[in-house]
């Protein structure tokens, strides 16, 4: 356990001092902030229009009109940011040969993987936490329901966990950070787009399967305030698969 913590804290330190992570988090906040801003503007114009038609009022609420689309946007930005956050995790160790230190230390591959993964997950947690200004701002100027906010953040955290494990896997496959980034981006994009493919063939069994496999599909329930065990299990399961495959990759690389 103390070795896991040692790996974790070293990775955490490297992450927070690296300009790559700083810029990624900043860009994440910038883009999500801009999208939030434009949604608020659109929503307020809409509200003013609807105010003229009194009967529309009950259908408006801040959660549905502003928060849910804003948080859904976060998940799209994650597609772009996560590969950047994870690309260096394993690839850099291999490139600068520090992996040799890890491999010759009395540390298990599991400890290495979990230490690194937890570090990047913690960074992601901080990044996600920084977007809490969105619901807080809305709560300051109006009334919002907090349960959907909680479930949406839980969903985003779990989706992020899946993405990060895929990113870690991609990083373990190569010693080139760019290759790792491109690989994980492609994998994530495919996982994302499964839902679209499913929607276009919605009536067939295959279409149904693809829809069920899509990450977006599982995130939607969380965004609507619904915490379903099967969504949680699905996302945690994908994360575990990602970590397990990383473990297999690292073990097998020793033998080449």
């Amino acid at each position, binding site marked *: 356990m103390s070795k896991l913590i040692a790996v974790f804290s070293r990775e955490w330190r490297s992450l927070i001092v690296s300009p790559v992570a700083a810029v990624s988090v900043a860009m994440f906040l910038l883009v999500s902030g801009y999208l939030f801003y434009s949604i608020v503007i659109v929503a307020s114009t809409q509200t003013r229009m609807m105010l003229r038609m009194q009967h529309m009022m009950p259908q408006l609420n801040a959660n549905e009109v502003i928060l849910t689309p804003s948080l859904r946007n976060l998940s799209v930005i994650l597609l772009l940011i996560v590969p950047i956050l994870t690309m260096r995790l394993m690839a850099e160790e291999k490139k600068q*040969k520090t992996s040799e230190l890890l491999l010759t230390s009395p540390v298990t591959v599991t400890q290495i993987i979990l230490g690194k993964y937890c570090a990047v997950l913690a960074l992601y947690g901080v990044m996600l936490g920084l977007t809490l200004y969105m619901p807080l701002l809305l709560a300051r100027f109006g009334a919002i329901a907090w349960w959907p906010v909680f479930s949406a953040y839980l969903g985003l955290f779990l989706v992020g966990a899946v993405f990060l494990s895929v990113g870690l896997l991609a990083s373990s496959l190569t010693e080139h950070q760019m290759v790792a980034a491109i690989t994980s981006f492609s994998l994530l994009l495919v996982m994302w787009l499964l839902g679209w493919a499913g929607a276009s063939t919605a009536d067939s069994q295959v279409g149904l399967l693809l829809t069920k496999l899509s990450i977006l599909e599982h995130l939607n329930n969380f965004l609507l305030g619904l915490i379903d065990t099967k969504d949680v299990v699905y996302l945690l399961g994908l994360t575990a698969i990602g970590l397990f495959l990383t473990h297999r990759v690292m073990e097998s690389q020793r033998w080449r």
Partner: protein
Amino acid sequence: MIEADQLTKRYGALTAIEEVTFRVEDGEVLAFLGPNGAGKTTTMRILTGSLPATSGRVRVAGYDIDESPLEVKRRIGYLPETLPLYPEMTVTEYLRYVARIKGVGRAGVRPAVDHAVERCALGQVRGRLIGNLSRGYRQRVGLAQALIHDPPVLVLDEPTGGLDPKQIIEIRELIKTLAGAHTVILSTHILPEATAICQRVIIIHKGRVVAVDTPERLAAQLRGAEQVKVALRRPTAALREALAALPGVLRVAPDGVAAAYGEGAATWLIDCERGQDVREAAARLIVNADGGLVELSAMAMSLEEVFLQLTTDAADRAGASAPDGHHAPSPEQPSEQAPDHDVIELGESGEAGPTDAEDAA
């Protein structure tokens, strides 16, 4: 302490090392010597568990590297060829991290770091980022990293690489102080280094062990014939024939003129049979013949020459047997013979050589 038994590593069709067998005793300092690409680093990586062997076994302190890798890794400090340093960390942070992943207890981390810093003379730079250090300091941080958990076994891949002469001497002194309490394996292609700090030398060439012995014995015993150099003021052909006729002398060859000793002076090299010391007889003969003896010295074959002789391509020596009657090792030889065949038996007392491996088996 360390037993390597028939280690072979193949990368596809390329054989990096083949049937490398040796044994290192507790507290011994042993050097791997060989030209670049001989398989030194590969052997060391297998010993430290960072690379699995294609076949063969390694045991460190009684633990098999494949069966209980963590136990072995706990007992080994490894300085790889490429230093495993994180440029974004300070020296202290880095050493603290290494101490923790090497399994030093929470309370022991600080003293371990202080001790390593002191030993490797890193006090001045301990707060600086590794990325900003000079090559020499980085090398020392690498060494400190290997020492930090006070392991019984140290594997150092070119420990003096990239250092200036003063630092090289310091590191050598440091390694000498480690001997006894630690078992040290180091690799080098600098021959005086091996002579200076090691008790035994393993010469590796093209992935095979070609010789195992102490540096002195390698130098002394591999020399096929003793050589005596004489400088004479008044050399004559008759004197040269008389010298050649001495018992034990194989031949006398002129080695050029010795202008420093005056007009007509010359130096000769006297090749003698192994174990024959002809200096006294030669001196008496020359003095009696009034040859004007001004210099007489035995030529010791340096480790450098041994090394060159052993690692020069076998093609040069094909068919020719070594002067002492033993066959020269040839990497191209088919390996259906006993594996020990590759190890030159050095003289009558070969116990430091191939027999060691048999003891280990």
